[in-house]
Every structure is written in C-alpha cells, then in structure tokens.
C-alpha cells in the first residue's frame, strides 16, 4: 500500500477515534465541580485536536494519491532485487506467541513457558539451526529464573496446573 493511501486510511480511522473520544470522555467522569476546567476538558480538547489533524492527514492522503502511486511504482522496481516473504503472518504469529506466553506463564510455570516461547520465537525469526535453538531454549530460562529468583529475590510464576 502506498503512503498516501496509508495516510488516507490512518487519518480517517484516527478522525473517527478522535470524534468518539470527544463525546465519550465526559461520560467517563462521574460528577465534578462545574466551575472552570473540568477533568474531561483536557481529554476533550486533545481528542478534538486529533480529529482535526487526522482529517487534515486524510485529506493530504487523498490529494497525493496519484503522486505517491507513481513513486511507489518506481520504488517497487528498485526493490526487485531483494526477495523477501510477506512479514505480516510472521508478525501476527509472534504476537500470538507472546499472548500465549503471557497466558501460559501462570499455568505452566516460568521455566516451561519461557522455553517453549523461546523455541517458537526463534523459529519465527528464521532460526533453523536446531541444535543451537534447543540449547538456547534449555539454558536461557533457568539462567533468567536463577537471576530473578535468587539474585534479585523476585518471585516468578510457578505452574498452577501441576
């Protein structure tokens, strides 16, 4: 997607976000002294500013759509030499692994969850040297566990499932 189109969609999204927050912010404050500036005045002013600036960004994106499309074509041509896969599935996979790690840490304990996470993330980052990968997944978690639990005296989650 070229940058003008990105600006257009990001601007439109943020403009709607700003408008929603502008009307929602006062609803989040229970009751307050009506004198002077209220707790919702500052958030309202900021969301209004975001809405206005985003509308401007959106308009700029619309205005530059043709120019950036041409530029994108030139850039695409220049990058032909670099072969690389789309990163989006890998990024989503990494976020999913992080989510699983956060949820899994209290269930499976720090050591097991960290080992599994390191293994999966290393694969996502393109590491295919299995020996090194397994060694890292086996050595790093106990080292971190020892550092936090024994050196810094901070309790890390223990497995609640077993």
């Amino acid at each position, binding site marked *: 997607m070229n*940058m003008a189109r*990105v*600006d257009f969609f*990001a601007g439109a999204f*943020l403009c709607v976000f700003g408008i929603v*927050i502008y009307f*929602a*912010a006062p609803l*989040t*404050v*229970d009751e*307050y*002294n009506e004198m*002077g*500036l209220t*707790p*919702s005045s*500052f*958030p309202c002013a*900021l*969301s209004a*500013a*975001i809405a206005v*600036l985003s509308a*401007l*960004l959106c308009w*700029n994106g619309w205005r530059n759509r043709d120019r950036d499309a041409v530029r994108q074509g030139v850039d695409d041509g220049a990058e032909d030499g*670099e*072969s*690389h*896969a789309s*990163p989006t599935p*890998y*990024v989503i996979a*990494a*976020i999913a692994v*992080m*989510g699983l*790690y*956060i949820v899994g*840490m*209290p269930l499976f304990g*720090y050591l097991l969850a*960290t080992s599994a*996470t*390191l293994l999966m*993330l*290393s694969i*996502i*980052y393109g*590491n295919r040297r299995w020996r*090194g990968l397994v060694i890292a997944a086996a050595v*790093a*978690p106990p080292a*971190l566990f020892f550092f*936090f639990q024994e050196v*810094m005296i*901070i309790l*890390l*989650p223990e497995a609640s499932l077993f």
Partner: protein
Amino acid sequence: MDIIVTGFDQIFHLQNLLLMAGGLVVGIVIGAIPGLNVPLAVALALPFTYHMPPLAGLSMLIGIYKGGTHGGSISAILINVPGAPAAAATAIDGYALARQGKAGKALKLSIYASVFGEILSDIALILAAAQLAKIATTFGPAEFFALGLFALTIIGFVSGDNLIKGVIAGCLGLLMATIGMDPLESMPRMHFGFYKLTGGLHFIAMIIGLFAISEALVQIENSLRVTASRTVIEISTKGDDNRVTWEEFKIVFPTMLRSAPLGIFIGAIPGIGSSIAAFLAYGMAKNMSKEPEMFGKGAIEGVAAAESANNGVCGATFIPLLTLGIPGDVITAIMLGAFMVHGLIPGPTLFTEQGGFVSAFMIGMLITSCMHLFVALIGLRGFIQAIKLKRSLLFPLVIVLCITGTFVAGGGQFPIYVMLGMGILGYLMIKFGFPIPPLLIGFILSPMIEDGLRQALLISDGDLAIFYGRPIAMGFLLMTVALVIWITWKNFRAQRRG
C-alpha cells in the same frame, strides 16, 4: 560543599560502581549490534532497576546510555553499519581506516574521543544545572504550563518527515496520560469501564512496549529479508596500525576540543539529538582541517570529531531534564521514567529536596565516563564479537526479557497486556509512518501542562492575564509561538520542494 561530600559518600559503593561497569558493558554490546539501539537497551533495563536503590539503578542506566552511544561506532567502523544513527558520521572515516588495516586505531580513537566528550559534557552539566535550577525554583503553575507547551515543540524536531503525523502522535501521548485519576479532583476518568485503568497506564510497560516490543516486531521483517552477509574487518596485529600515536593525538586533540562543546551545546537544547551533533562536528572538522581532501578516505580527525560530539551530548541532555523536568530526547524521556519509577520528580524541586542525590548522580555520571575508558579498552575484542551475534537468537530473548521485566516491575498480568498493546501500537505506528518519540514526550509532558493550566486558572479565577502578566511564562509562550511558526514554515517549504 556538604552536598558534594554527601554525593561522594552516596555514590562510592561497590554495588553502584559494579552496576556502572555492568551498564557500560551491556550498553556497548547492544550499541554495537546493528538493529538494537540505545532506547531499546535503556527500556529493557528499566524494570531491572525497579527493585534496586534509586542511585544504583540510575547509575546502571547511565552506563547503558553512555556505552550504547559509543558502542554504535564499533559496527560503524568494522562493517560500515552504524549501530546507532549517531555513529553514521563515524562510519565515513572509521570504515575507510578499517579498510586500510587500521581498524584498531579507529576503534581506540573512537573510545578516547567518546570519553573526552562525555567528561566535558558531565562537567558542563555539573556547572550549569544548579544555576539553572536556581532560576527554575521561582516557577509557579503559569510558568510550568508555558514551559510544558514550549517543551512540546520538541515534537516538531523529532517528527521526521511528516509534521502532522508527529503532532497527532504527540496528542495521542497527551491523551493517553489522561487515563486514570484526575490530578486535581482525584476522580477516575477515561477508564471506559475498565477499572484497572483507573491507576493509569503503567509507565514501564508503555516504554517497553513502544520501544522494545515494536522494534522486535520490526526486526522480524528484517530477518526475512535476504541480504548479503557483511564481513567483519579484523584488527591488525601491526603495532602502529593498532594504536593512536602521540603525534596523531596531537593532531586530533584540537578537533576534539572544538567538537565536544558543540555536542554539549546541542545536547542542552531539547530535541536536536546526537546525530546532528556528530554531523555538524564532522563538517566543522573538515572545514577547519589542513587536509580536507582526506575526509572520507580515512581522516582520523573525522572519527574524533564525530565521536566526541555525539558522546558530548550525553551529559548535556540531562541539563533540561534535571533542572526543568523536560526530556531533551527519547533516551532522556525514558530516563525521566526511571526517575519517576523511583519516586523522584526531575525539576527544580529535586535540587532543593534531594540535593545529595542530585550531587551523587552527577558525580556518578563523571565516574561512569572515566570508567568507560577502561571498560571499552579492556573489553574491545569481546565487544567486536557482539556484532556476530545472531538476531534470530537475540530478539526472542529480548521479547522474553521484556515480558519478564514488565511482570517484575508491574507485579501482575495487566501491565504485560498494556505492554503488548503498546508494542502492537508502536509497530503499527512504525509501519504507517507515525513517529513514536512524540507519543512518549506527550505522555510525559501531559501532567505538567494540564496541572499548570488548571492550577493557574484556579489561582487567577479564570483570568488569562496570569500567563501574559508574568515575564518568564510570557517569554516561554512567545518562544513557543515563534518555534511553532518556524517549524510549520520549514515543513511547508520542505513539502513544496519535495
């Protein structure tokens, strides 16, 4: 005098000295690895300081900051890939020297120049900070509001190519800071029914998410990209190619003496940063050199100028931070977070209420700079090996450390979710061309601006004259208006040209 003695007494503990050295080692290693940067390193180390005494934790972070700023020059010299943006100027002549078999000379010169710049910068901090803080003690809410607005103009400098996106990011940061308790009326706001948000967004979680997790996600893209592997140039075994001779030192010393103050001056002005300092110093050294044609072909003055200026920034960036509570760049913004985590609020009151601590902190900075020389020289061969570390092993470890660190600092699951959310937000911002630093700067300055404005209006009974009737507040407001006009005009002109 008593405060200085107290400062020495507080800082000279084995734990503090070891943490400074450890911070330097970590900083140099991370700085040397392309793809890892100083903000990421400081953000990653921040939760580890949570359970340390304030001075010990901050000493470690200072070590990382200084080591990381210099560490970028190692990869710049050996593989022509600057580990940090500020080392790009070092790469021009450093890599040329390395290709001539003088990698050892360039690396050692970069150490000497960096340490020289740091020491001068720390001395400038010690001399200037207390004087500036004295003036700042007269500030009231109106002055703090005006100062906060003035500090927000930093966004104009750190926004990159698109000013609108930078300002939107800044407004988002200001808005995020309003989540939690209202500072004046102590009532929850902006929680949208999630009562865990009434405590506000966890600052460490936010920093780690925005600067470390987002960078780790971006690096997935880089790890998929097929690029030619770069060969690390080995250090020569020949004596003269491996050291800086006395004759060479006499040539570069005047350059260092000119470049370090330039770095200090730029560092003291919020928003400009070490990259610009390095390039300006490099340009100045070239203009004043007897052999300007040698620049780009391996001029030792080029390396000395760039390094002494970019590390000259380090101490000076703490002048606006410690005296006025405004961060000069991303790293000092994170450092401000570190101060706040330990219950210390940078600004004029820090000098009056915690004089001993401030004194110990500044002496600690000076000690770290001296220690930097020995740590960098002794560990040089080891730091070179850091360049060869595999990203595919490094970044998974960074992610695990981020999550563990947030768990340790946040004390529960919720801050980790905040961190992950911020990481995704940071990644999307990078992908869509929104700069992250304005968001953090807005988040930090939000309480100063909102509290200042509301308190000033309460005092004056809603009369706006409180802002233009007080000379310091008026001065800041005028400077803000002038800077906004200048930044907008500059941006408008750049857009019309480009």
